[in-house]
């Protein structure tokens, strides 16, 4: 019989793989940010599984990995906010949601800038 922690542990590693795949394969930047968050949530879930396995001393879950995950969630949100702001600014400058490796000459042309 499979245990709850093994079950969630395996699903967390699948989530990491899925997120990584989306990050590599999807061409749209916003979707990449989304995939990155999926990847991150898989890692956090793995921490949760490790915390649950460390239950003891009257606690149902080891509090140290839990605290690390809470820290991680806040940092992930801050990083996502920064990435989204960068992306929106890029769109404002170029009118296009581009990927970083695009060799399109039009984006290197002086963009209509808001700067005076």
């Amino acid at each position: 019989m499979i245990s709850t922690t093994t079950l969630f542990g395996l699903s967390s590693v699948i989530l990491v793989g899925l997120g990584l795949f989306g990050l590599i394969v999807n061409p749209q930047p916003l979707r990449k940010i989304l995939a990155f968050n999926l990847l991150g949530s898989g890692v956090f879930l793995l921490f949760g599984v490790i915390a649950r396995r460390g239950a003891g001393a009257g606690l149902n879950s080891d509090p140290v990995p839990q605290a690390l995950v809470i820290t991680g969630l806040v940092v992930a949100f801050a990083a996502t906010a920064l990435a989204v702001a960068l992306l929106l600014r890029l769109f404002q400058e170029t009118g296009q949601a581009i990927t970083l490796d695009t060799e399109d000459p039009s984006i290197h042309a002086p963009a209509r800038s808001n700067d005076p």
Partner: protein
Amino acid sequence: MTIPDLLLAAAVFVLATVALGMVRILRGPAAADRMMAAQLFGTGGIAALLLLGVATEANAVLDVALVLALLAAFASVAFVQGASHPDGDDSKETHSE
């Protein structure tokens, strides 16, 4: 069958039901249909969370459900607004000058 067991079973049932409703998000056809399915998923998720938490006597679940309800309300309205006025866009404004 004890009450916690029944509550757990009900949680599984509600989750499975609203998951089925996710098909409507895929199929659409109109924007409103997708919103409805998302809304149903949110409500069902909260119900499942409550059932699960009470069944396993995890009291903090009420707080989690409260936060979910607050943020889901905002998210669904933001979603409806964003979807029904695609021009909910400030950047265009600064561009068109």
